[in-house]
């Protein structure tokens, strides 16, 4: 059972080998080594999954090594292997494996090839570590490492101004969420003195934690999750994260970074389940996120951005699912989403490979140039919209039905979301693959002119696409007989397990969601496919919504200009610097000035006249006698 940890070790080691042996080490080896390691990890994950299935999803972990033990503080590094983590392992390793294979071709010739694979390995390893962690601090460690890797990868082309900004932004925004996570850790430690995940669950269920503290703890965790999983209002980093190489985006959006947040909430489901306020917040934030992100998706012109917003909105679905106690549905959706979203991104990468641009307005008609890419992306898109019998349909349906069961308003929101999703997916498909080719643009690699005639991508890139397409098509069948249910629920304590919603399959829900999806596609066809309705007119009618959307609800402005530049840099820090310079240093230097001044006064007495000196002496004498005899006459 320790083997997944071993794989993590291998990858980490490789990552550092790749880094330090830069130069004498052929870059290709890094790729091979990484892929081999991930393949081993994938195999081990399957083996772990097998073990988890045998155990009906119950925990088969064990406590590992002492890390920090000080006084009452006890952090042991351990492994949690249960149904939930086993599924996550498989998702992570499989998507990662495919992405790495794809990258072999995509990144060919890039100067930072070694670095790329090193970071990617570390990324996957951190994610695995996160999933396997048995201790909340350990979880936090890998959580932050995931953040770090995303930072490094988003800023991979560090000489690009947009890339370095996006990287910093991603790290900082998620860091804000992480503060919540950290505070949550502090709260739970001060309440229970325990940091083991299992211990925390027990304490929460046993009522050993005060209800306020519990809620705060859960909300803190959720803040962390919201940061990583790009939930409103911390979602702003994700669209910018497109600055990294496309496979990175695939990995971030499908299997690693964003999944971490959902995983975290799922992992602490027993805690959330104990706090009504917390779980309601999760549902509400999920709902808001789902809607606002899909609206943004409609306006985006960059294909990767469209997908990014779609990720955000799908993550909103997952959160909604968790918020209605539908942990099975949520993880199921995570599972299916991983495949079709990875596929979408890799497809976008493929498109970019061919056209050299991500701007959908520069594409068009690609279906005939790149059939494989088109069909795989099409499958993924339909899965995303949730058309049966593709993977997305099953999982999204389950969320809808759980929502109906628990909080009908969430259901309504989700249904609207389905519609909006269909609209932007349709728009994306029509703009990219329909109509005429509009010329492409300069590529990321700086080789102009080769994209005038788009062509299908090399085989090595297509294989992952096809594999993922198959998965996107059939992955939904996994849970058709509740195959995942036992796995996902198996590890839950009995008290929490009873709370989990099981909406079950309901025909009318399935039909209505399919109808909403089709309606959305229809609208998209009207505007972008057949161009029956001018998009400008739609825009005009919807005023001022488009403008708000184009400015992304002014959140970036609010954060960057108002909070960071305005309040923090321009306000607080500026004021403090004045305070520092004039008041504190002023006081310090003022002491010096006063001393100087007194010195000048003091020496004036020394006027050089001897009898003056004698007079001072006698004044002192008389004063002393008078002082002693008058003040203290005994």
């Amino acid at each position: 059972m320790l083997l997944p940890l071993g794989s993590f070790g291998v990858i980490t080691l490789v990552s550092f080998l790749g880094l330090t042996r830069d130069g004498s080490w052929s870059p290709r080896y890094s790729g091979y080594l990484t892929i081999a390691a991930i393949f081993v990890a994938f195999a081990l994950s399957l083996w772990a999954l097998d073990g988890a299935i045998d155990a009906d999803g119950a925990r088969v972990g064990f406590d590992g090594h002492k890390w920090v033990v000080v006084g009452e503080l006890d952090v042991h590094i351990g492994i949690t292997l249960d149904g939930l983590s086993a599924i996550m392992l498989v998702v992570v390793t499989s998507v990662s494996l495919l992405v790495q294979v794809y990258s072999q071709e995509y990144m060919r010739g890039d100067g930072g090839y070694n670095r790329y694979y090193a970071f990617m390995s570390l990324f996957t390893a951190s994610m695995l570590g996160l999933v396997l962690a048995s201790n909340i601090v350990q979880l936090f460690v890998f959580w932050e490492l995931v953040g770090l890797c995303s930072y490094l990868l988003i800023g991979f082309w560090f000489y690009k101004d947009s890339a370095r900004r996006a990287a910093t932004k991603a790290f900082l925004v998620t860091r804000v969420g992480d503060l919540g996570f950290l505070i949550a850790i502090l709260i739970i430690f001060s309440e229970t003195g325990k940091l083991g995940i299992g211990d925390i669950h027990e304490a929460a269920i046993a009522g050993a934690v005060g209800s306020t503290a519990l809620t705060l703890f859960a909300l803190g965790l959720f803040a962390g999750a919201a940061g990583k999983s790009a939930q409103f209002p911390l979602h702003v980093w994700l669209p910018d994260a497109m600055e990294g190489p496309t496979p990175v985006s695939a990995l971030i959006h499908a299997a690693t970074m964003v999944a971490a947040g959902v995983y975290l909430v799922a992992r602490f489901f027993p805690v959330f389940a104990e706090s009504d306020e917390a779980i309601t917040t999760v549902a509400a934030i999920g709902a808001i996120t789902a809607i606002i992100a899909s609206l943004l998706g409609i306006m985006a012109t960059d294909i990767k951005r469209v997908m990014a917003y779609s990720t955000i909105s799908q993550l909103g679905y997952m959160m909604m699912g968790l918020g209605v106690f539908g942990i099975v549905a949520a993880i199921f959706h995570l599972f299916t989403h991983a495949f079709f979203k990875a596929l979408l991104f890799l497809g976008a990468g493929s498109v970019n490979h061919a056209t050299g641009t991500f701007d959908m307005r520069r594409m068009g008609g690609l279906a005939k140039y790149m059939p494989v890419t088109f069909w795989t992306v099409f499958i993924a898109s339909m899965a995303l919209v949730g058309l049966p019998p593709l993977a997305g349909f099953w999982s999204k349906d389950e969320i809808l039905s759980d929502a109906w069961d628990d909080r009908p308003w969430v259901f309504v929101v989700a249904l609207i979301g389905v519609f909006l999703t269909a609209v932007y997916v349709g728009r994306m498909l029509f703009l990219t693959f329909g109509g005429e080719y509009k010329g492409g643009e300069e590529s990321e690699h700086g080789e102009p002119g080769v994209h005038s005639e788009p062509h299908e991508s090399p085989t090595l890139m297509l294989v992952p696409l096809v594999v993922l397409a198959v998965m996107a098509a059939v992955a939904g069948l996994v849970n058709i007989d509740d195959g995942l249910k036992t796995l996902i629920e198996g590890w839950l304590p009995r008290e929490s397990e009873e709370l989990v919603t099981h909406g079950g399959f309901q025909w009318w829900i399935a039909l209505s969601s399919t109808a909403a999806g089709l309606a959305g596609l229809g609208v998209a066809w009207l505007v972008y496919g057949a161009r029956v309705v001018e998009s400008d007119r739609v825009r005009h009618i919807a005023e001022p919504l488009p403008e708000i959307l184009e400015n992304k609800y002014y959140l970036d402005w609010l954060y960057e200009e108002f909070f960071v530049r305005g309040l923090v840099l321009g306000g607080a820090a500026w004021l403090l610097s004045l305070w520092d310079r004039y008041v504190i240093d002023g006081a310090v230097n003022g002491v010096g000035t006063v001393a100087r001044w007194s010195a000048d006064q003091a020496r004036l007495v020394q006027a050089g006249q001897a009898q003056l000196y004698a007079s001072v002496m006698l004044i002192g004498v008389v004063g002393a006698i008078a002082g002693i005899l008058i003040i203290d006459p005994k």
Partner: protein
Amino acid sequence: MDDTGTVVAFYMLSALTIVSALGVVVVRNLIHAVVFLILSFVGVAGLYITLSADFVAVTQVLIYAGAVSVLILFAIVLTPTGDRGNQETFLRLPALLLALLVAFTLGYVAIDTDWAISDREGFQQTASTIGEALLDKYVLPFEIASVLLLVAMMGAIVLVRPDSAMEGE
């Protein structure tokens, strides 16, 4: 000290002493001031006699009224273009105030203190006793004083004799 003669002598001598001292202050000619100074010294010598301190009185007359006054006159003479006006500096008023304050303080303390008065009679013969003390018990300070006088002499030479003779050696 109740006999009238002593009392009268005391007051007269005190008056002489203090009025002469004030004379030193008031007169506007330095030479005249020296004269008043000598008078004051003599007055003090007289007071010593009322205190039956004959040896001290004699010493006083010899050294103060004699030697010191002559020294002072010498000094005046040796600084021919010096100021002979006996003026005060700008510290006149503060000094006056201070002097009055000191006088008041000293007087207050003198009166306010319980002195351990003995009923001993006046001394009969002080010179021999003092002489013995000087050569016996107080031989150390006596020696020091003699060294001191030598030092003063040497100092005066050092100060007054010019350095320029150096080149001659």
